[in-house]
């Protein structure tokens, strides 16, 4: 081996080292752009997100006319039907329900990258798996489930997850409906020990505009369970072959929000314009005075 060959070999070595440093630097910076979201996140129910205190409380939901008709036809007695007792709530419920989040990840044992994050189930909500490995969403004809199908990516320090393939279900437990065409975009923002989840729900059938809502959780040293207790069906008074419901204009609870809380009917039945400040100016003064 002559001096030129030795020099060439050294130059190649140097280039490899520089390349390795570049790769390491890039990898380190990329890794640093992500935050840890796994762990137990306790619910801080300082906002009334479930909205299930009264049968007709669709305040804050921008329902379409179709959605409103369906919502007002719903009777909560349907939940006494044996076949519906364990139907559970869709993935939206993780930002509405009163429970915390237990999040864990699955890691590729060879490459070390995260394949998926899973948000544990509750008794009435299926676990939500967020696939991080770049797999595509299935065909629109594929099976729809309660949890749906979710993929995720990191945008800086924000985990962004997109859910499709959810079964037709409910936007709110009291009967505001969601179709099987509904989708949900979740954005997870971690600020110290606070995790705020922003959900943007779209439904071309039952929503007049995207429904935007968020919820914060607090990191918990106490481990939350990854699943809830099993749901068991039993006889609850519902007779076979009946589906409790209300015919149009016959829902007896439609004015309960008005009489109890002074909420105008248009707001209680989820008219989209009631979500914006100018609507407050249309409320009769008598309703604003407690």
């Amino acid at each position: 081996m002559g001096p030129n060959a030795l020099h060439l070999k050294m130059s190649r070595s140097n280039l490899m080292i520089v390349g390795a440093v570049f790769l390491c630097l890039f990898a380190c910076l990329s890794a640093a752009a992500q935050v840890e979201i796994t762990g137990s996140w306790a619910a801080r129910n300082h906002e009334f997100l479930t909205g299930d205190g009264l049968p007709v409380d669709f305040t804050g939901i921008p329902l379409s006319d179709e959605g409103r008709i369906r919502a007002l036809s719903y009777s909560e007695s349907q939940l006494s039907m044996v076949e519906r007792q364990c139907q559970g709530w869709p993935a939206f419920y993780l930002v509405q329900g009163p429970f915390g989040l237990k999040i864990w990840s699955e890691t590729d044992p060879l490459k070390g990258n995260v394949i998926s994050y899973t948000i544990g189930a509750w008794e009435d909500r299926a676990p939500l798996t967020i696939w991080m490995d770049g797999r595509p969403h299935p065909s629109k004809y594929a099976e729809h489930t309660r949890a749906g199908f979710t993929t995720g990516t990191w945008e800086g320090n924000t985990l962004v997850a997109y859910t499709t393939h959810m079964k037709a279900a409910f936007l709110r437990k009291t009967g505001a409906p969601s179709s099987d065409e509904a989708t949900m975009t979740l954005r997870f923002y971690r600020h110290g020990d606070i995790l705020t989840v922003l959900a943007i729900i779209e439904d071309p059938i039952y929503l007049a505009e995207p429904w935007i809502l968020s919820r914060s959780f607090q990191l918990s040293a106490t481990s939350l369970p990854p699943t809830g207790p099993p749901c068991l069906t039993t006889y609850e008074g519902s007779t076979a072959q009946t589906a409790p419901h209300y015919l149009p204009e016959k829902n007896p609870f439609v004015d309960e929000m008005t009489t109890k809380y002074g909420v105008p009917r248009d707001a209680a039945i989820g008219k989209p314009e009631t979500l914006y400040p100018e609507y407050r100016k249309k409320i009769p003064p008598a309703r604003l005075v407690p």
Partner: protein
Amino acid sequence: MRVFSIAALVTLLFVAALPRAAAQDRSAKASAPVEFTGYWVAVVTKDWRFRMVTPRKGDYQSVPMTQQARKIADAWDPKADEASGDQCKAYGAAAIMRLPARFHITWQDDNTLRVESDAGMQTRLFHFDSQPLSPGARSWQGYSMAQWQTSASLKVATINLRSGYLRKNGVPYSENAAVTEYFDIAPLPGGGQVLLVTTIVDDPRYLQQPFIVSSEFKKEADGSKWDPTPCTSK
């Protein structure tokens, strides 16, 4: 070869550190990771009955109040607040982002972000460059210190408040309350932007635990719907 490698590593690390060092030297306005300025409208998709109408006395659901706070709230008298000139108690920094309102965010100068509300006609100033030299007079909006986060968020810490209301029906926070907020921006499907504000109110006197809520806003193209209205206690 070893010398060359070390030199290369040092050079690379130096180059990688340059943008951060440069950002520290620049003003808050110049180093803003995202654009918060513009008109934003509150979208009241939750807690509607606590925010769009004035809740009835005694309707304190979801707020982790102390017994002392409950006594004060039970004595809420909006007419007395009006009479004493305290009709802006529900428009203080701890609660203002929960109001059905529009907010106009601008740069007052290179290191001060100005946030105005049309409801209540309040002005908040987010100071990026200074700590308060002296406590000064307490005010509804207090003194806010701001900093950009590496996650492209804006963190705002507010102190020196006048005591006010978390909700219009007299749920109190004390003058020693500390408010921490995080501002984040997200794209809205089909175009547009969402501003997400996470608010944490610490007040050991009137809250059993930090009060944590988040509020959503949509960006508007202009100020055509801007409608300044004075504070009201009802």
